[in-house]
């Protein structure tokens, strides 16, 4: 579903990703772990086209996201091409990023109507179903500012699902939440991952969640994948000393 081929990303002189290769199969739930600044979030941002690759190629499904072929040569993709390909990808952000000027209902229907060409009635029906799924049916007419962080993040998850994505990117989605709200959001995501065939790519510091829900966990350090294994293997018997130290540090922090 997702394929990174020799992807590099630099911000000026700083190299964040360096010759990165990995694939994610359709329906797979892959979690990226690693110290801050190791490039995990950059991977999600490249997939969402919020950043552009410095080198290498990214594929989504059987389409190339980062490049188009023009006159027999691969050239960096333009905005129009990326807009088409990224319709298959949704993203949930650390800071929720709901539109504060719209009610919950409008947050959920704006893009399905404008981008997927759904009728208003169809989009609103779907929005109600999704609000029901995330347990916020009664908040349909609320403004985001009237919701708690946990509720805002649930709406943001519903908003991403309303676009019927094949791939859902989760960028530290519980990092900005009060501790007592984290479990609810994680349980919801677990539920969605189990009941849909959406491909997930998740950056998180919630190791319990990662172990519980992931099919595969990739440990990042210095812009490279240093370990890529099933969660049970990676969390209980990592091959790399670096992984072991990282996990130990995270567990000690609590």
């Amino acid at each position, binding site marked *: 579903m997702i394929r990174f081929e020799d992807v590099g990303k630099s911000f000026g002189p700083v190299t964040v990703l360096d010759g990165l290769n990995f694939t994610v199969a359709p329906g797979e739930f892959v979690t990226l772990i690693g110290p801050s600044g190791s490039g995990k979030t950059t991977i999600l941002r490249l997939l969402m086209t919020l950043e552009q690759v410095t080198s290498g190629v990214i594929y989504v499904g059987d389409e190339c996201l980062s490049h188009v072929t023009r006159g027999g040569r691969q050239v960096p993709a333009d905005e129009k091409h990326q807009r088409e390909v990224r319709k298959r990808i949704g993203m949930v952000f650390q800071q929720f990023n709901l*539109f504060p000027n719209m009610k919950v209902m409008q947050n959920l229907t704006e893009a399905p109507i404008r981008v997927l060409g759904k009728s208003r009635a169809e989009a609103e029906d779907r929005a109600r179903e999704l609000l029901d799924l995330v347990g916020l049916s009664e908040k349909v007419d609320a403004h985001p500012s009237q919701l708690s962080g946990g509720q805002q993040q649930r709406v943001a998850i519903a908003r991403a699902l309303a*676009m019927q994505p094949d791939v859902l990117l989760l960028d530290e989605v519980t990092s900005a939440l009060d501790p007592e709200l984290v479990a609810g959001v994680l349980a919801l995501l677990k539920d969605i991952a189990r009941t849909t065939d959406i491909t997930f790519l998740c950056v998180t510091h919630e190791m319990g969640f990662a172990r519980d829900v992931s099919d595969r966990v990739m440990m990042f350090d210095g812009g490279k994948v240093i370990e890529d294994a099933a969660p049970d293997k990676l969390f209980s018997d990592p091959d790399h000393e670096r992984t072991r130290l990282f996990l130990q540090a995270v567990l000690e922090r609590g």
Partner: protein
Amino acid sequence: MNDDVWRWDYAWEVFPEIVGGGLWTTVQVTVLASIVAYALGLVLALLRMSSIRIVSTIAWAVIEFIRSTPLLVQLFFAFFVLPDIGLRFGPVTTGVIVFGLHYATYSAEVYRAGIEAVPRGQWEAATALSLPRSRTWTKVILPQAVPRVLPALGNYTISMLKETPLLLTIGVLDIVGVAYQEGSAAFRYVEPITIAGVLFLVLSYSASLLTRWMERRVGIAR
């Protein structure tokens, strides 16, 4: 009685002249020029923020040029020089265009600040939902940016109001213009000029009440 500092009978005589002649001109120019300034200011702000380098550079140059030259000079130029190259407008129209253009450049910077204050996450969420660029502007960014800058724009309307006496220089008689005219006809300036001052006080105070009301509304909406 001619030695009285203030004569009520004379004051009552010139009051309707100043209100009837000057007040209307002042209000008309201020309102029309505000509309021009707010609309054109937004356009200038968007051009200034364009990702096409040449467009944003030209917009920057236009904004800086107009902001850095005095309004009075611009009025003279528009009224006395432009007709030589075939651009001829009536004095009131010239006033509206020059005031509108001048304050559009200030408004553009205010809009730009308001737009830049919208968190980057809003753009990113719009991208993640594949919303078209135009839709992102009209439904996400501007509805958040514009209410925040309304009070600042309101203050420009108040400045404009207080600068309308400059129109005297191109023959448009605003409140002060009419007051001055009345004063020179009777050789008594105290009453008409005082009345003009009071009228400005009333106008700009009501405008600032309106601006403060908008500020509160914006505060509630957030």
